[in-house]
């Protein structure tokens, strides 16, 4: 977690200002990563300057110290956002490939792990797990789920 400079000695308003600056920087970086540059620029050019000016004044730190602290904040948030962006892409890719696999073998009635033949209750548990997973996928990713044919619905 980023720590506000001299947190323990800063008065409340300064802590509050620093939190707002952190949030605004994070938002600007996220917007840029999402390709929404104009909105990011608005935050950097219109919201942040006034906040930074007031925080610098109240912090009691030298302007050099303030600038260094701000540079560190920007670097840290940019790093976090780029890691998050990669994670997001990987998750989306895995969902997409999972759905592709599901489309070729749509929610087949099978089990994923080995269950000895004599253990009928364990086999039923394994089937139930598969069923729940398939239902979860269908509920959470309905656009890719197997389409329900009205002709098959209860008459």
């Amino acid at each position, binding site marked *: 977690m980023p720590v506000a400079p001299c947190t323990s000695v800063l008065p409340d308003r300064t802590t509050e200002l620093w939190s707002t600056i952190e949030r605004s920087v994070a938002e600007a970086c996220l917007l840029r990563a999402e390709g929404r540059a104009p909105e990011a620029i608005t935050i950097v050019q219109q919201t942040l300057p006034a906040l930074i000016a007031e925080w610098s004044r109240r912090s009691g730190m030298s302007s050099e110290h303030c600038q260094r602290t701000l540079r560190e904040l920007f670097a840290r948030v940019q790093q976090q956002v780029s890691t998050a962006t990669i994670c997001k892409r990987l998750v989306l890719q895995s969902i997409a490939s999972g759905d592709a696999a599901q489309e070729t*073998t749509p929610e*087949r009635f*099978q089990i994923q792990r080995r269950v000895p033949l004599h253990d009928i*209750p364990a*086999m*039923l548990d394994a089937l139930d797990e598969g*069923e729940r997973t398939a239902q979860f996928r269908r509920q959470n990713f309905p656009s890719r789920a197997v389409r*329900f044919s009205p002709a098959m619905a*209860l008459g």
Partner: protein
Amino acid sequence: MKANSSKHAAGNTAVLENAQPQTTDTLLVGLDWGTNISSVLASLRGTNETLTKELIPTVVGYANDDVLPGVLPGDAKILVGRMALKHKSNLKLVRPLQGGVIHDTEAAKTFALNLRDLLPTGSREVRAVIGMPASSDLVARENARNAVRGVFHKVLFVPEPFLAALGVRNETQLNDPDYQDPVLNSIYIDIGAGSTDVCLVQGHYPTVDDQLSVPFAGDAIDQIILDRILAEYPESGLTLARVREIKERHSWVLAEDGTTRAIATIMVGGKPRKLDVTAQVGAGCEALLQKTFEMTRELVGRANPDTVAELLRNVIVTGGGSLIKGFGVALQAKLIEEGFESPQVRVLGDNYKDYVAAGALKVARMARENQWQTLLG
């Protein structure tokens, strides 16, 4: 195949007998709900006595509007199973299942209600374990659940290959040193109407990796046979239903002279003609044999090499497609030709329908109380 409505004595289920307390207030049902024919077994919970053993053609017939009074028994509007087939000329026949899954839910419910009437339900709670194709999806299971809502109190759906493996095993003989347990290391082939399933059963229930299923089976070869006949006799007006009848009587692979000639009376140019369609029937059956062989070969390729020799000594073929004359021998010959050592193919035979239902009843006896799905409404 003949339906049997007599009451039968206990099956091979001694190992399972203590699983649940004896209660006469719960009826357990094992159901193989097939596209063409359904097999049902029922017994009271906690007992081994089979109270009901029935084979019912999976068909519902709705009376035609113009049927005259007194023609249909009790002037029924709906007939099911063999009665529907018997009176088919006055009915619109509907097959509730296609490719092993429910296709017409209303007809399926009518069929299931009729089936329940054959059971000694009385005021008992009725719990059914129902086989579903391994290739069925969530929607298919939901449709099946809807169809049996109001028919059974509690249900469990289990993939058919699991039930067949359980059904074919004779637990009473497991302590006999000479008994070859068919599920310890075997290849199990089920050739139905809608799909052919091949799976490795090696002491555990087949996982995704142990199974292959293709939508190529009895229905597909009916189409091949029909296409071939139409190619030769384009005006013959032959239907798929008629082709299936011909196939079921005259199916063959391996040796054409080992079968009776397939003579079909076909209308050509408005006149009935007797045509020999033996070769066309053989071509369809051969295509299924080839597909089954390829699937078997692929699955053997996935097995642990140390187990392959024993695996190939236990190739079990079941399902209606296995009744093609010469199928087992022909598959064995193909495996030998491929270079596999001493493969042995066993065809389960006419009573293949009993195994899935028997497996389903075993599951019903062993299921934990909290595993049953209660059907409300």
